[in-house]
């Protein structure tokens, strides 16, 4: 049960340093505006800020009142206003409206804008266009890495996904490169680097440039982390679109984990209040079940509850001295455990109410059929029924996308009819959503020539010279095909199972999807780490449309200690899911590695599709 780390597993570096750095820098910035001031914080920054500096720290540095940045006039009466925002034009315009309103009223105050994690030229330009460039001072809070857990760093930039993968906006690449640069200054150079995807490649190259410009700083240091692997989210959309069934993923899908904590409602806390609960390795109960398949969790928790009861029961028959010992040393821990246990049991019950109904079983069955490529017609009707019954719009969209990617696009008739049904059911504004999904390659129509896939792949197998490769590349650029089925076969993503897959004793990473599917992203990482190169993966790369976009930069002689060589930093550009994290934690345990995760944000299917959805403003 649960994942004890192997005794030979390497120690994780101490990432709390990142928090201290961010806190010190923020305090420094606040002190740049001496005296009492009101602080306006963008909603998206509130939770990350809370993990770095709580209200009392802010108060210590003369922050009077806290306001949320929202579209209405400020009620603040302070003489000094400080804004803590993401570098978005929308925010700058809001600030400009406040400043200009003050000007109209003949009021003079001091204004300071702190952009996090960096400021963009466009923002300053808008300040200028709004005529307030001289009235405000701008600063940067280079806070780009939030340690959510001992092995998980998040940039907390959910907009990265839409900005890059939909709008083609490369502004955050520099932020990624800066963050990697910071990590290498703090934890030593990375001797072995691998990556796949256009964004991964650009980030890597920009990061390298930064390192060269400041050479000497990291050169002498011993590497603490032996490998870094960068991966674009669009290399593997399938995994991110699947329903999650490991506990942490399921909690995220059901209750939404935000910045490492979750709000458990009254039905879970069995009181009249909601409770914000931090979910990380410090929660001893949670850390034992987070990576478990949900079917095991309830049994585990009840066993745990029985054990706890037994420990409480030991009180009987104790003499006074023993009782004193028990109360002073054990009771507090037991009570704490008891509290956590009842929370997670509550969460489990709530999930089971929602998920173990027949609907959920059917849903999972359909997903698995899509992954395996069986019963496509039945799955299509199932999706239609979803739409007809107005099951949540995101849920229907998710299945449509999953069908599209696994089938290399929908056949034209289905593409049209499903979209029509969808628009009738959920509203015509989703026409734009479909246009977005198509651009991102999430929901496409099979091109007429696509029936040639089989022939084409046979041809490319026969002709392996570069010219032929170029032709197919040119082909695929017209309609980037997902080739999921072929990739799945090549990488053996659908395990052959004789009999039941024992989810209690997982044998491979497929356990995170009930034994039906090994996450593509994780399989690619596993394969490359095994080979320490992309050798022999040419065909996979071609199918992933990444022939030119994969790189491996491996140290010729390993100066790194064997311990550090078993530490691997995986960077997910565009977000990673808890299922992927669990799968790699499992792989790490099997192979004696430890993975560290850096993601632009933790994501799941709903967040991914919401980012693509167009909602009327």
């Amino acid at each position, binding site marked *: 049960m649960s994942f004890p780390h192997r005794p030979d597993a390497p120690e994780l570096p101490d990432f709390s340093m990142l928090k201290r750095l961010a806190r010190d820098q923020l305090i420094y910035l606040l002190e740049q505006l001496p005296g009492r001031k009101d602080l306006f914080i963008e909603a998206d920054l509130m939770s990350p800020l809370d993990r770095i500096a709580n209200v009392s720290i802010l108060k210590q540095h003369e922050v009077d009142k806290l306001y949320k940045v929202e579209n209405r006039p400020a009620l603040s009466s302070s003489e000094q206003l400080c804004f803590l925002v993401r570098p978005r034009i929308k925010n700058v315009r809001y600030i400009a409206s406040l400043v200009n309103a003050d000007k109209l009223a003949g009021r003079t105050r001091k204004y300071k804008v702190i952009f996090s994690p960096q400021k963009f030229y466009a923002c300053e330009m808008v300040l200028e266009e709004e005529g307030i460039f001289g009235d405000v001072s701008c600063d940067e809070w280079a806070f780009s890495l939030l340690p959510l857990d001992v092995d998980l760093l998040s940039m907390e930039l959910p907009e990265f996904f839409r900005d890059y993968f939909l709008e083609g906006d490369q502004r955050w690449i*520099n932020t990624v490169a800066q963050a990697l640069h910071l990590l290498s200054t703090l934890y030593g150079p990375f001797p072995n680097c691998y990556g796949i995807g256009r964004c991964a490649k650009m980030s890597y190259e920009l990061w390298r440039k930064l390192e060269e410009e400041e050479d000497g700083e990291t050169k002498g240091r011993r590497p603490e982390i032996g490998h870094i692997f960068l991966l674009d989210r669009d290399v593997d959309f399938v995994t991110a679109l699947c329903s999650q069934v490991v506990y942490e993923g399921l909690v995220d899908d059901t209750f939404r984990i935000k910045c490492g904590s979750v709000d458990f409602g009254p039905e879970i806390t069995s009181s009249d209040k909601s409770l914000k609960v931090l979910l990380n390795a410090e929660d001893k109960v949670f850390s034992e079940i987070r990576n478990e398949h949900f079917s095991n969790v309830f049994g585990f928790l009840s066993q745990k509850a029985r054990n706890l009861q037994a420990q409480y029961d030991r009180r009987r028959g104790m003499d006074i001295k023993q009782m004193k010992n028990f109360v002073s040393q054990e009771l507090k821990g037991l009570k704490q455990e008891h509290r956590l246990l009842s929370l997670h049991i509550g969460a489990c019950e709530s999930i089971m109410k929602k998920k173990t109904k027949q609907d959920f079983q059917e849903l999972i069955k359909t997903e698995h059929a899509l992954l395996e490529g069986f019963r496509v017609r039945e799955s299509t009707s199932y999706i239609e029924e979803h739409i007809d019954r107005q099951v949540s719009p995101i849920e229907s969209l998710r299945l449509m996308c999953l069908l599209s990617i696994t089938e290399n696009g929908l056949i034209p008739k289905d593409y049209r009819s499903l979209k029509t049904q969808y628009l*009738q059911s959920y509203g015509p504004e989703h026409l734009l959503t479909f246009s977005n999904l198509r651009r991102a390659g999430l929901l496409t129509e099979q091109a007429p020539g696509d029936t040639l896939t089989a022939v084409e792949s046979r041809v490319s197998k026969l002709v392996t010279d570069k010219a032929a490769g170029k032709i197919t590349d040119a082909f695929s650029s017209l309609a980037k095909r997902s080739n999921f089925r072929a990739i799945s076969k090549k990488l053996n993503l659908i395990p052959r199972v004789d009999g039941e897959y024992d989810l209690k004793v997982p044998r491979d990473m497929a356990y995170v999807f009930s034994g039906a599917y090994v996450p593509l992203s994780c399989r690619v990482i596993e394969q490359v780490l095994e080979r320490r190169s992309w050798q022999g993966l040419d065909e996979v790369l071609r199918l992933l449309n990444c022939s030119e976009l994969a790189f491996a930069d491996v140290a010729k002689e390993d100066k790194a200690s064997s311990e550090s060589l078993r530490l691997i930093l995986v960077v997910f550009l565009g977000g990673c899911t808890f299922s992927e994290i669990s799968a790699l934690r499992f792989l790490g345990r099997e192979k004696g590695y430890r993975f560290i995760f850096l993601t632009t944000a933790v994501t799941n299917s709903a967040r991914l599709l919401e980012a693509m959805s167009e909602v009327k403003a």
Partner: protein
Amino acid sequence: MDCYTANWNPLGESAFYRKYELYSMDWDLKEELRDYLVAAAPYGGPIALLRNPWQKEKAASIRPVLEIYSASGMPLASLLWKSGPVVSLGWSAEEELLCVQEDGVVLVYGLHGDFRRHFSMGNEVLQNRVLDARIFHTEFGSGVAILTGAHRFTLSANVGDLKLRRMPEVPGLQSAPSCWTILCQDRVAQILLAVGPDLYLLDHAACSAVTPPGLAPGVSSFLQMAVSFTYRHLALFTDTGCIWMGTASLKEKLCEFNCNIRAPPKQMVWCSRPRSKERAVVVAWERRLMVVGDAPESIQYKQLTIQVLLDRLVLRRLYPLAIQICEYLRLPEVQGVSRILAHWACYKVQQKDVSDEDVARAINQKLGDTPGVSYSDIAARAYGCGRTELAIKLLEYEPRSGEQVPLLLKMKRSKLALSKAIESGDTDLVFTVLLHLKNELNRGDFFMTLRNQPMALSLYRQFCKHQELETLKDLYNQDDNHQELGSFHIRASYAEERIEGRVAALQTAADAFYKAKNEFAAKATEDQMRLLRLQRRLEEELGRQFLDLSLHDTVTTLILDGHNKRAEQLARDFRIPDKRLWWLKLTALADLEDWEELEKFSKSKKSPIGYLPFVEICMKQHNKYEAKKYASRVGPEQKVKALLLVGDVAQAADVAIERRNEAELSLVLSHCTGATDGATADKIQRARAQAQKK
């Protein structure tokens, strides 16, 4: 050896001195030094001489010659002075010669007589002319202080970062002060001036009278004052022949000495012996020199660092020597050799008689990719000398593409700058170039340029989406991107308040989609327009809100409100498929708990979705009685599921056994929970066992 002390002469009673010539001056001066303006740079730097014809009024027509010599008198430069009358000369800390003209203009020359730049000391100075000027050095750089004809002071503490400061008026000052000097205290430059028996200290805010502590009485005028190099000490010479020495803060007296000479000295300066840490003031008259010493001083400054020394060598174009020193001292390349080479290259680009190709090649051969060398700096210098082509050639060697951008923009090579900015991966840089291009090119050309640079285009589009919507539309128009234009107009329709406006925007969108050959989107948009119009009519007729509901929700609302006919009509008009309509009606009627109507509906024709959904929906409304009615009508394929839904495990088991369906058997078995189902479970197990036997 015995005459070792032969050339030492006694000085007073306890000290001896000797005098020997280090070198003789190589210059060949025609006239006496007294007729020149003279400026010698600190640390044995160059000496500038300018014959001063403006002293005598008649000679103003003769153009004087500005000469620069090395400390040993080697001529470095000689040029005809063509500008206005000069009041004062001085060297900056960077060994630039500052020539202060009477009209307040300061001309700046290099060590080799090359003109660098000029700046003015302001309008007040121009109007009232310069009476006197001083060039002074602080830790922040070199400054200029000016006394104007109106007896006002103007100063700039650092000519490298020119900020003019007009000092406050000195009350009652009718004539020029008898003497004045610059003090620097707490990082602020101040002026100390003497008017009759009074001393005044001027800073940028105020003028205050000061008194040197312990000064012997009877002074009616100060004839000379001198401040030490570090601004720590001050010496005053009074008309009583007294030399007062103290701290520059005027808080402490070090010593006082009466020399009994009342004539004003020509010069008075502080000096120190390097090792003894002893400070002294040297006072010079026409034929007399006097050294007045004070208590030893404990602080010794090391002013001239190795970097400054190297700079000085570079200024004298002694590149090989500088490099040898760097190598000898094993300075890191970036601080040492690379820097010298970069300076050499900057000098090289000024050699106008060498072709661009040769200069570029020579520079690249020497510099290669030495770390710390910035080719863009060298290129900037080349451009400064008017050699644009050479600058572009040099930029090619710059490995950091981002570094090339600012200069390329300056040289108006904006398109090249754009590609380089994109190469650098720095979106801010790309954006900067874009704004340049936008101002530089006409709209059409600007858009064409964007078209070839997808990365820049996406960046600009993102900006336009928030800030310049009209430009965004123009961009799509330019590219004939009808698909995006369509989406643009759909978005625009949301912003319209009135329904006519919305419909009009949608029509434009539909037209664009047709042009894009996206018939699906065009039709969908037309449907949306139709729905909007219809919803408005419904709102008028039925007096409740319909706008912005989806088609499905519109029909549902009609049913819930009991407008079944209209609902049917709408479904026909929009060709809602049968299956959807059945789901829709079933859900709506169950929501209304109109079981009678539901039953009627279920019998209206054969259900296209079967009868299992009826069972499900009734159960969701907790109506087992109704659910059971429909369970009986469910086809054999789904019968087991239906029976399980209504909780009839026993019958479900019978059906499953009859159908000999293993999956169904397992399903029923998993529903056998309570004690009541024990018999059913046994029955299934028996059936299974029997099936296996066969």
